[in-house]
């Protein structure tokens, strides 16, 4: 379903770039709290931290569950399916690596597992004017280098 307001308000940049997306941007640094997430991506699995006691997913990862204050957490593989919660088209580059990349899309995806469980990513197969809030999407993995694989998204029907 198209959102009328989105369609009405949208600017229409000229073209769209498909993979590899946004090469040259800084990649995530290794860190003990987030290692499992990035390891999952390397295996082409989206794993999200989840409370072992109350089952609540949390992203970004953190030590305690803010819902039930439990320290018990596990890394749970999720479907990778979700929908666009919000989106923007960046037309103004603020990083040297982006000079030739704009315009590019930036989306916040809400995963189907839990309301409010969102992550930041890009849609790799959409022109700007095709993106809308509520658009179904699923994860795809892009190997940036041997250490880092990033989760991007593509549309689904």
């Amino acid at each position: 379903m198209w959102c009328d307001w989105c369609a009405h308000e949208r600017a229409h940049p000229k073209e769209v770039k498909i993979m590899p997306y946004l090469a040259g941007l800084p990649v995530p640094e290794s860190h003990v709290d987030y290692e499992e997430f990035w390891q999952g991506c390397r295996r082409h699995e989206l794993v999200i931290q989840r409370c072992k006691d109350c089952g609540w997913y949390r992203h970004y990862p953190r030590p305690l569950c803010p819902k039930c204050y439990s320290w018990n957490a596990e890394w749970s593989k999720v479907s990778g399916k979700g929908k666009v919660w919000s989106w923007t088209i960046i037309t103004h580059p603020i990083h040297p690596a982006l000079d030739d990349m704009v315009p590019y899309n930036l989306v916040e995806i809400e995963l189907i597992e839990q309301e409010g469980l969102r992550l930041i990513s890009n849609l790799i197969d959409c022109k700007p004017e095709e993106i809308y809030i509520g658009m179904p999407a699923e994860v795809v993995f892009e190997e940036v280098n041997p250490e880092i694989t990033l989760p991007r998204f593509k549309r689904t029907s």
Partner: protein
Amino acid sequence: MATIKDKYAIVGIGHTDYSLNSGRSELHLALEAITAAIEDAGLGFKDIDGIVGDHPSRVDAMTIGSALGLRDFGFFIETDFAGGGVPGGLLHAIAGIEAGRATSVVCYKSLNGSSKLTLPGFSFAAEPHELGFTRPFGLLAPAAYAALAARRHMHQYGTTSRQFGAIAVACRKHANRNPNAIMYGESMTIEDHQDSKMIADPLRLYDCYVEADGAAACVVTSAERAKDLRQWPVCIMAAGQACVPCLSRWTKDPTVNENETSYLARQLFSMAGLVPADVDVLQVYDDFTPLVLMAIEDMGFCSKGEGGPFVEGGRVVWPDGKLPLNTSGGNLSEGCIDGFNHVIEAVKQLRGTSTAQVKDAEVAMVCGATGVPTSGLILRR
């Protein structure tokens, strides 16, 4: 129960010129604003015994204290979160005075935001590693965060870019009366706003703040002591800070009712014993127009989702609007001093010295940035 209501006052304000390239360091600008504020209060430099800085600051209390020739200063603290933190600095100053650790505290903010003349030094604080979840995807500029929230607001409530534009146009109109505003000489219509280039859809250039060089400062002391000073004291009815779990760190979710700004507003109105209708003039941190609109909703000036229609039709425009907003031009058109300019303008309104003076303004409200830990003030004449 202990309360700080009406016990403290802003007795001096000072600021530099706001410009795109000052040619002066952040330290220089800070000292200009601070000395101006102290002189405005009719105090001597050595009467100052507390210094409240702001994050991120490259001008520290020891350097300020040394330059002012203070042999001993017994109170210094920093607030958090640039745009959210400035009013909170006054709260910390009040806590310090109330604890008997200082009598007159200077709060300040100084920026080479436009010229970038002062380079960042070294910080022992590790960069937040959560950036790994945003940066590789091109979520870099604050505008992009605001854009995602704005798009969601439009989707949910039918808000339009023209409604965002109404805020930008109001601020510009106010700036056109303020010779210290960077956009003083440049008028703007809603059509200009609509024609301005897209930065991060749906944010256009004129939805975004103006980076500036400049500094601002104020002096806080007890209401008792304020009586003997040079200026008409501006009484602090309420001061507060707020930070709540946002559960997903990425962008402000405009549909969530319980957030930092609503929590802040509840505290402020309850401490002051006022309701939104009592506010004569409003100063809201305005880095991006959609966030101003959301803050207005969260503070209870209108219902959730009604921010768009609320800001239309001149309601926030001086002189005839019922709730004049950012009457100096704000970050959008005066220049971004991280919201310290909003504090200065609120004081000017209550002294009756604003360039867009609201007639008989008695109560002014200042609200820091939304979407981050924030802070605010309610002031009265």
